[in-house]
């Protein structure tokens, strides 16, 4: 209970700081939503009238408090760019798309890196370990957007396995939707799989050197039983924490990848909203992202609590 209260308090504080920083950042950088929307052919009077209408002539702290008030009453206001649409109605479908993409990426990361990492730690061949670390470095070093271009070029244009830009929403066809998102998910997953494998294999290698591993082996357990049952269980805590961080990073990576693959998600919407100076939308997305990061680390903590009795005892005492 105490744990939950502590988490909630830290969540609230994080949100408050993040939203205030965003407001402050926008008041410091130049660029005005009204003139951005109206462009070069509008008269200054038109720009001023729109500024008034959007409430931009009020001081920044007043706008912030009004926004906070709206947030707690469930009213995030209307978008500046799409003035007929509420922020909530604009963001909801995009949140769904990004969650779908993130979940798919996360599943790929776990499915591929867990077995690979453990196998890699057990492998003894020198050639294999050199090959592994070279491949690893390469995967980690290549930026996601480049992998995006590469994947599109190979699978979209040369092999024609998918049609770049032809995203299908979940509501139309879940299967087609997942199939399209498979490719961007791979691009998000590849560098993170490399990192997870790296992290996992060094953890497992360290565990293998411990006394209990030798004891288990001397009791006659086969090497795969040793690896996947005993060692993996004992390496779980750092892995779960690491995966919690990875889940948070996936969202950041999706900002770039959504643009490359023309996926109508939260990340792409965030980028265009920033360029339009559409503050209400940016604020709402920033809150969601902060929430996501906090939730991912909380989930990791909770899982560790469940698997590691030492942590539970520590919390009670």
């Amino acid at each position, binding site marked *: 209970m105490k744990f939950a209260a502590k988490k909630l308090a830290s969540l609230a504080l994080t949100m408050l700081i993040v939203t205030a920083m965003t407001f402050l950042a926008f008041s410091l950088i130049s660029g005005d939503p009204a*003139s*951005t929307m109206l462009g070069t052919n509008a008269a200054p009077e038109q720009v001023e009238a729109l500024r008034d209408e959007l409430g931009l002539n009020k001081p920044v702290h007043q706008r912030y408090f009004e926004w906070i008030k709206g947030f707690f009453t469930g009213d995030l206001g209307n978008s500046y760019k799409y003035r007929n649409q509420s922020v909530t109605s604009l963001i909801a479908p995009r949140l769904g798309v990004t969650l779908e993409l993130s979940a798919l990426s996360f599943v790929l990361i776990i499915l591929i890196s867990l*077995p690979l990492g453990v*196998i890699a730690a057990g492998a003894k061949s020198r050639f294999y370990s050199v090959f592994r670390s070279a491949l690893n470095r390469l995967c980690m070093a290549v930026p996601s957007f480049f992998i995006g271009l590469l994947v599109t070029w190979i699978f979209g244009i040369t092999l024609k396995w998918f049609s770049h830009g032809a995203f299908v929403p979940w509501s139309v066809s879940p299967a087609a939707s997942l199939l399209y998102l498979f490719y961007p998910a791979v691009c998000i997953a590849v560098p993170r799989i490399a990192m997870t494998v790296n992290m996992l294999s060094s953890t497992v290698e360290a565990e293998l050197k411990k006394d209990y591993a030798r004891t288990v082996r001397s009791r006659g357990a086969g090497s795969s039983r040793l690896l996947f049952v005993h060692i993996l269980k004992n390496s779980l805590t750092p892995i779960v924490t690491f995966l919690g961080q990875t889940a948070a990073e996936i969202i950041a990576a999706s900002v770039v990848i959504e643009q490359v693959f023309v996926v109508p998600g939260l990340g792409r919407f965030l980028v265009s909203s920033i360029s339009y100076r559409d503050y209400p939308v940016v604020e709402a997305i920033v809150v969601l992202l902060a929430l996501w990061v906090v939730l991912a680390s909380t989930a990791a903590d909770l899982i560790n609590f469940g698997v590691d009795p030492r942590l539970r005892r520590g919390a009670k005492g």
Partner: protein
Amino acid sequence: MKRKAFAMLLSFLVLAAMLASCAGPKGGADEIVFGIAQDLDDDLDPHKMISAGTKEIMFNVFEGLLKPTTEGELVPAVCESYSVSEDRLSYTFILREGVKFHNGAEVKSDDVVYSILRCRDEGLVPAFAIISGVEKKDDKTVVIALSEPSVEFATYLTAAIIPADYEMQSTQPVGTGPFKFVSRVAQDNIVLERFDDYWGEKAGVAKVTLKIIENADSLVLSLQSGSVDIASHLTAQQVAQLGDGFRAETDTMKLVQALYLNNAVKPFDDIRVRRALSYAIDKHEIIDVVFGGYGSPIGSSMYPAFAKYYVPELTDYYMHDVEKAKSLLSEAGYPNGFSMTITVPSNYQPHIDTATVIVNQLKAVGVTAEIKLVEWASWLEDVYGNRDFESTVVGFDAAQMTARALLERFTSTHKRNFINYSSETYDALFAKAMITYDDAEQTEIYKQMERELTENAANVYIQDLADLVALRKGLTGVRFYPIDVIDLSGLHFES
């Protein structure tokens, strides 16, 4: 176990790839997907649309009493014919038979009266302020009376005719054009369909989906992989990437691209410095190096597509001449050159590339230029709004089919005279143009204004950029206009 896990992993990947390869084909041959770089305005009301990107698309949905042709002439659209009284104070319009709105209703005089008065009364078309009255003679005849004559009045009659008292224009626009608006999803797509009751030549395809793809690389990828059929405003490099499956048609952007100089700050307040820069910068080299030879060089605030107002001999008024530039700089007191900043919006690569070449060319005359990249939103506020800049590379377009749209902004008191150009001669010429009612005479005055800008080296004029349209092979029928519009109605698949 090791091998088993690896085999499982491999089969998972193969399965995923196989499933993915079953992705279905796209729509029929009577539909096209048009890639555009930014979403339309939120408000689709034709009288309230502001951005060029919105107007160029909604050109297909709306029509005025008159509409422009590809040659830059104005021809009757919603009206069948019109006559002007001898004193030029009264315009009589006979409406065309059988013109229908997208909602099925026939266009009547009431709709025309409503549309014109709405534009005037709500200040939506400032040029309509001189309308003293709009009168319905009968169901098909409307008379517009002016308080003073104006040569340019007809230009503004392209303002859309919309159904009287229809409240949903902003979200569900209804016009008389060859395409009707169907739906839109913010930041994703806009769907238009052929209007089968259109009075003129029917559109060549049944459905056009305008897909928003902000990232330039992604747009090229979508074209290549087949989900987009056509895109405009492409650069020569992008088109070169597309390969065999595409055909490109070349137009110009209808922009005046220049190194705009803040005439009020040192050293650009000195005409000798501005002239020196004009001699130092070689626009032909810029076009060759950055744009692969595509692009029309210009020498004043007018582009060749506006043939009526264009003065060709101004293009090479300042022939590239490093020595002349150096001696002008010495004369102005800068024998060793000076340092300057070129502010460039970061969202448009051609402007950035142009500025990069300019930096090199200026080095040859001893001027050290530094490029400062800013976001478009910042550019609008700092450079355009607050005039806080030394020089900038951008392009300006004409909102209307008249020279005024490009030239008025440099009159000294104009609120958008962001370069702080100040010339009494220029102001006087503009004032004279406004009260000249003979078209030929007025055109001559506008040309004189262009000469003024060139001789005073108000800016270093560069070019009207090439605008390449890429079409999937088999798709044809692109039409180009002297103003920035995208005419979708001619597009069709060759049978």
